[in-house]
């Protein structure tokens, strides 16, 4: 058979093969679809939102996504926001999350929660996959994979098929019915935690400073530079998490960096009384607020932002409906406690 025909046939078969592989990959990839930790929906859902929709974008770790409820924030301020965070999110992932989000959004402010910047970097399989698996493919994802890879093994991070092909053994119906383009999170990235764990100790504030690991500072400076270049204001915060002394000392050094860079910095661990947080009722575990704490914090944030960032003020039926869903979830959680 002529060479050209052979090559054409081979190309056609290869194309079919790749299409089939993409389809299988979508079925087999691991998905988090069970509330309240439906992280796949939250992440994929963000990229299905309209462009230039959000006034505020929140980034960081589980501390971020358990603290702020965007539907409530909108109700209080008219500001539309989304929490684009994942558990123990490696800080390089956060950088690329911001970079990717700013491709389709023009927020008035990017809010960065600093917990992971105070930790030594380490490879965590769950954290890396949670951050990267459902991230849209593109230059940012490739660069993220290279940065996050364990011992340079970045290819499996970009080809979930290799990692997850064995999931045929545990496939469920949801795997087959999942449609990435249909994902939508009414809670806008917020994870509502039911349950309460009364705590005896709160944050241990400190006046001293301790330098954060050098690479962490490097990433933070990259994020600062990114926001400057895009012309988006950056706000560095620490959500209430009963930080220990080491974290507080490291936060203090970041505070100093923020001041030197002329960036707003707020450590909400210092404001439990103003927020009205109670160690007895408002925490899910030692590091995360529950739904009660998150509501208090979101309302406090709303007041804090009022005046500083004017909202659009217009009614939005979709956001109204989403706020309704938030309240329904809140009430259900409250009823469970009663």
């Amino acid at each position, binding site marked *: 058979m002529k060479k050209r025909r052979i090559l054409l046939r081979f190309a056609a078969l290869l194309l079919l093969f790749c299409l089939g592989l993409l389809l299988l990959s979508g079925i087999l990839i691991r998905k988090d679809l069970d509330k309240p*930790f439906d992280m796949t929906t939250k992440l994929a859902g963000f990229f299905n939102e309209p462009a230039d929709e959000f006034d505020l974008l929140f980034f960081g770790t589980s501390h971020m996504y358990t603290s702020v409820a965007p539907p409530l924030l909108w109700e209080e301020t008219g500001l539309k926001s989304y929490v684009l965070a994942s558990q123990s999110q490696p800080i390089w992932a956060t950088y690329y999350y911001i970079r990717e989000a700013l491709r389709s959004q023009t927020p008035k402010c990017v809010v960065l929660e600093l917990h992971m910047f105070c930790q030594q970097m380490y490879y965590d*399989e769950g954290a890396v996959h949670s951050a990267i698996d459902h991230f849209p493919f593109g230059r940012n994802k490739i660069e993220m994979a290279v940065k996050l890879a364990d011992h340079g093994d970045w290819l499996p991070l970009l080809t979930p098929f290799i990692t997850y092909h064995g999931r045929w*053994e545990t496939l469920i119906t949801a795997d087959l019915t999942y449609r990435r383009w249909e994902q939508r999170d009414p809670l806008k990235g917020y994870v509502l935690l039911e349950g309460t764990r009364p705590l005896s100790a709160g944050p241990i504030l400190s006046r001293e400073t301790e330098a954060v690991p050098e690479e962490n500072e490097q990433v933070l400076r990259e994020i600062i530079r990114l926001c400057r270049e895009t012309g988006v204001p950056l706000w560095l915060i620490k959500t209430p998490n009963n930080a220990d002394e080491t974290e507080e000392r490291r936060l203090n050094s970041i505070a100093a960096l923020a001041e030197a860079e002329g960036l707003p910095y707020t450590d909400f661990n210092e404001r439990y009384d103003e927020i009205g947080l109670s160690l007895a009722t408002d925490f899910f575990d030692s590091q995360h607020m529950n739904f009660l704490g998150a509501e208090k914090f979101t309302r406090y944030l709303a007041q804090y932002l009022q005046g500083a960032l004017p909202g659009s003020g217009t009614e939005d039926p979709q956001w109204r409906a989403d706020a309704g869903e938030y309240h329904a979830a809140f009430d259900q959680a409250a009823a469970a406690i009663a």
Partner: protein
Amino acid sequence: MLFNSLGFLIFFPVVTLVYFLIPRRAQTLWLLGASYYFYMCWNPAYALLMLTSTAITYMAGRLLALAGGEGRAAVLRRRWTLALSFAANLGILFFFKYYYFTLDNLNLVLRLVGIAPLRPRFDVILPVGISFYTFQALGYTMDVYRGKLPAEKNFFRYALFVSFFPQLVAGPIERSTNLISQIHEEHRFDYERMKRGLLLMLWGYFQKLVLADRLAIAVDAVYAQYTAAAGWQLALATLCFAVQIYCDFSSYTDIARGAAEVMGFRLMENFRQPYFSRSIAEFWRNWHISLSTWFRDYLYIPLGGSRAGRWKKYRNILTVFLVSGLWHGASWHYVFYGLLHGLYQVTGDMTRGLRDRAYRALHVDPDGYPRKVIACLGTFVLLWFSWFFFRADSMGQAVEILGRLTAPGSAEGLSMGLSARAWLVTGFFTVVLIGCSVLRRRGIVPREKLLALPLPLRWSLYLIGIYTVLVFGVYGPGYNETAFIYFQF
């Protein structure tokens, strides 16, 4: 380089592509370089050893050619050349494979006599494939000695014969009369031949990744904790092992033959539906054929074969199978495995008349279908029994495991490592395997049938086959669900 590795999936197309683009004169050198590279991926030092064996047997071949003639001196010279070649190569094999085994057993004896044991003076690592290429090279020496083919004058061509990467590491153990002449031929790209070769490789990958490596999970789980396993689990695990080892071994041959076929080489068949055999003797004519025939031609027949009378025949069979057992591994349980198979055949031969009479007495047609089925099942049971000795880590462990076949196992039970879905899928694919084997037994070659189908159906089956291997195959880093559950935050 393992066949089931990303490296090989890149190596093979590159080597093949270049192979067909370069002029004929360069083809041998290219393949030789590629084969040595392939081998050196394990350990560069191994290649040196293989080169040594290659050099020795090459020179032996040349010397045998030079010592031609009928005179007594010439015959003597040829005998000595042969003997030295065998001694040198078997010496190398013996040292690298059986050093520790010999030392351990020697120490056993020394301890009994009250002498302090000997300590190994150095670390000896077993080079991959040494049993295979050594036998292949020795086979060549013997063939030249017997005048079956002229000695190869071109060192590079001969070196390629020894190191040809598709069959270097796990066979088939090729005959010089088959492979060397093919190395002299020119090979051009052939589209139809390439499809055949690739399909055979795909079938090999299916057997290895989907069946063998998955069954290995269950087998390893039980054998690793056999004291906790129930008797039926030990029996089932060994049954699974029977399928596992067949798939593992024959898959390697299929990938080797398929790869060689793509490049235009025809390697010998190594397995012919061995589990359908109706006797152990027949089994060895259909299992690891290249090794069995090697032993037949280079050990059994020189010992006299079956021509020197009944008892000599039995002696020869037992000798060959003892050596065969030892060839499989430097451990007593392998030796016993070999001995067992030797005894099976001797006993089978001795009792054939008795069994014929028994069938006649029961009014069962000795040539009929029921007997064939009984023979097949009976043979399989004998094989299953022998696999206990092959899979166990030692004689003691094998005996202990057999002793536990009626045991209830520990109170908590032992997981065999596979989910219900995995068992179902494995069972399904085993049925597919058996189905294809039945077709082959009846002379139908599934590959040929597939290639004759219309394009849309053919391509669908190609894709289904590839996806089956990619989805159900055991490979890759996998992922740990607990990494996600624990780190919800």
